[in-house]
């Protein structure tokens, strides 16, 4: 099968082929009997290995969850199963969704199907490559700072991060709770829209989901949009000039097609990445405290350790480098004496960003930005420079800090042979409009 042939890409951590075939046969049978079909009848879907699927292992690509089996379904999984989806397997990712290249996995790195010496992006690299290489029809990832949009960009497919509070996080292993959203990878807007419609909505198990009408999408080909982009973002020295050029040229075409395009000042751009890493690592340091070897998962082999030593040993051995780095960072920014200088300050930045963003959406329908400053880099290229890796998130973390929805639209090809896209965002809970815009742009 395709998945087996493409095993070197390492997109899947586990494939549930027997189950999937059995389910497919069952659905075929039911269809023949004339039973009404679910919205996702027979759609083959892959799950990032941070999304709980009852009676299946769940590892977050970490040794610390080795042999852990979930005893319950994520709400999104329940909803997809209710619509007769076929869940084909759990997909590789950066450990605990921490990373931008999918090189931080206990199950090995994932390769970009377009060019095997390049990274697929991260953290949902497996989810992106599985759709890119046709190893499932659509997939779910999670996006805390760009982990859906950036790998979609690197792999030349669509990647949507819904509004914070649109999709239940119940059953999604938390990285940074006030940033995390389950996101969608697909080839077409119709696929993105359908999957979103199924997994969105209130959930008694996640009180951060808002009561909003289900986002039901239909095409709006003649809609004209007021589009803004941030001057500082396009002028950023780290941005690949070819990407800059492609986006500016395309916006000029949009202008000619009757849309309004405006470059606006966004002086807060320089604060975005620092604020993001302070707040997300703070939340992560607390969210990952439960992985302690007491109740489940990896436990150090050393016996007769005193309690504190037991925790230290288990967690030092169980977590990978990047995860430990972020736990340490987060613990530091929350510790007495540093709290106000880092955590409180970053919260203030976040508040400013939200206020500024709400103002922008009074005058504009869409904000566009690059998804990433470069195309997919070579494997190993940034592994020794975490700061450079963090800075590559400059365009995506903005949507997570403010909670707005964002999508990466695959529109371009680079002279280096790699694809790239453009990122579009709308105001909170305006995904329908975001999808309509994206669809129109993909038709041109």
């Amino acid at each position, binding site marked *: 099968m395709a998945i087996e042939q493409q095993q070197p890409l390492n997109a899947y951590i586990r494939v549930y082929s027997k189950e999937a075939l059995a389910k497919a046969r069952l659905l075929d049978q039911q269809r023949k009997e004339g039973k009404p079909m679910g919205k996702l009848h027979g759609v083959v879907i892959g799950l990032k290995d941070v999304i709980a699927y009852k009676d299946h292992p769940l590892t977050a690509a970490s040794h610390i969850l080795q042999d852990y089996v979930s005893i*319950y379904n994520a709400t999104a999984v329940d909803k997809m199963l209710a619509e007769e989806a076929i869940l084909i397997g759990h997909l590789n990712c950066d450990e605990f969704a921490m990373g931008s290249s999918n090189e931080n996995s206990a199950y090995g790195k994932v390769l970009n199907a377009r060019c095997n010496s390049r990274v697929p992006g991260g953290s949902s690299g497996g989810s992106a490559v599985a759709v890119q290489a046709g190893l499932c029809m659509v997939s779910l990832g999670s996006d805390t700072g760009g982990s859906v949009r950036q790998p979609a960009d690197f792999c030349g497919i669509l990647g949507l991060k819904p509004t914070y509070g649109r999709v239940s*996080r119940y059953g999604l292993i938390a990285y940074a709770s006030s940033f995390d959203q389950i996101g969608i990878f697909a080839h077409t807007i119709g696929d993105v829209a359908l999957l979103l419609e199924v997994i969105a909505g209130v959930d008694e198990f996640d009180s951060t989901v808002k009561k909003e009408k289900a986002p039901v999408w239909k095409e709006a080909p003649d809609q004209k949009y007021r589009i803004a982009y941030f001057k500082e973002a396009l002028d950023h020295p780290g941005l690949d000039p070819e990407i800059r050029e492609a986006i500016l040229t395309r916006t000029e075409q949009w202008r000619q097609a009757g849309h309004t395009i405006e470059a606006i000042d966004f002086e807060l751009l320089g604060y975005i990445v620092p604020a993001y890493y302070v707040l997300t690592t703070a939340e992560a340091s*607390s969210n990952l405290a439960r992985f302690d070897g007491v109740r489940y998962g990896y436990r150090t082999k050393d016996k007769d350790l005193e309690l504190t030593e037991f925790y230290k040993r288990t967690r030092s051995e169980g977590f990978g480098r990047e995860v430990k780095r972020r736990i340490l960072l987060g613990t530091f920014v929350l510790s007495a004496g540093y709290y106000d200088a880092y955590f409180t300050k970053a919260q203030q930045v976040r508040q400013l960003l939200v206020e500024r963003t709400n103002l922008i959406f009074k005058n504009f329908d869409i904000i566009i930005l690059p998804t990433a400053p470069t195309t997919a880099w070579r494997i190993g290229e940034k592994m020794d420079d975490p700061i450079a890796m963090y800075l590559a998130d400059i365009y995506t973390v903005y949507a997570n800090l403010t909670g707005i929805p964002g999508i990466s639209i695959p529109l371009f090809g680079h002279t280096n042979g790699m694809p790239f896209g453009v990122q579009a965002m709308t105001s909170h809970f305006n995904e329908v409009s975001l999808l309509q815009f994206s669809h129109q742009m993909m038709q041109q």
Partner: protein
Amino acid sequence: MTINYDAYEIVIGLEVHAQLLTRTKLFCGDSAAFGGEPNTHVSPITLGLPGSLPRLNGKAVEFAIKMGLTCHCEIERNNYFARKNYFYPDLPKGYQTSQHTTPVCKGGWVRIRTTAGERDIRLNRIHLEEDAGKSIHDVIPDATAIDLNRAGVPLIEIVTEPDLRSGDEAYAYLTELRKTLRYLDICDGNMEEGSMRCDANISVRLKGETRLGTKVEVKNLNSIRNVRRAIEIESRRLIELVATGQTVQQQTRSFDAAEGTTFALRTKEEANDYRYFTDPDLPPFQVTDAFLESIKASIPPLPEQLVQKYTRELQLPEYDARVICDDRDSAAYFEQLITHTTNYKAAANWLLGPVRSGLNEKSMDWKDLPVRPESLARLIRLVEEGGLSFSIAAERIFPVLMSEPHRDALEIATALNLIQSSDTSEIAAWIEQALAGMPDKVSEYKKGKKGLIGLFVGEVKKLSKGKADPKLTNQLLLEKLEN
């Protein structure tokens, strides 16, 4: 050197954790009931499994506010929960979700009554938090077992200002607090089972000194009496340290009830940095006017109001009223009883006398009292109407009602042949018989030894087995002897 203990003032602040009697836990639908087979009240949320999220139990908020309103606290309208981060095996998420910076109830006071009179103890706050699980060290050799049934059970923490000055005051405060919790029906106040727990912060200083001394925190106090004892023992130790020029170390100590001593658990230097921050999984919650009003309306009459009612409207002595109101269930019983009888004093006498001793004999609580209020009211009426003497009713009828509560007082009295006779001819016959048995006493009486009348009455009582109406007996005897 002799130490003048009286030269020192003891300063005490209490932190009380009260487990709320909600059906489910603070952040999930698992049962919050005490006990159960280990690890049976546990869903993915209690277990803190990867991906699980909390959701707030509104009932717990309601209970906390109920306590706050009763204790005259200011109610915080905009609330959120924080995470208190630390590692412990019985803390499944690696943090405790607690109200740290915004307690739902601020300030307030509790009125206590000691031999020195009444005094108001100021509260600092009442806040909501989740309980941890239990580490059990003695079921598996060389290992600790974890029971997470208790993990996530809602608690309120009630914190006083350092206003208490003695073990007796602490005793009175805790008694009052427990009474209030039970009246509100939000905590069963059982310190032995740990549904109410108390830590005492104790310091000493010379009388007249305004600065606080270095405090120690004493834990593991499993009864109100032990809180008093621990305070007495620990404050003596502190006074001895200070009086002999030694320094008090800021410490957490444990009380050993069997030894009557305290010992250090840890010192301040080992204190944790809990890295509190707002729990991003729980959106802030608002207390609306409507919610507050509905809580106010649901507060039942409290002991102080009932004491007022019983002394003013029912004309009961204050002592009777207070004793009845000491226990929510005895007050509730009395409330029912007085809907069936207007003889309030008799009703109070019954509760404070025979009913209370009947319960004590069987080691029962008021809520388990089998005798229905209407049934006790009928017994009261029988005595009132002269069909029974109080002592017969209390000693012979009531015990039967206790063991066979479905029976009727009159029916029991009749069956036991205890109904007082007011049949003059029957009593006259007993008198004849009595006097005939002691002719010499009769002649002594007639010669002027009038005091013998008591002997004759007693004899008639004996012959009638208590059934002869004593008043009528007296009257008929006089008629008989004087003629």
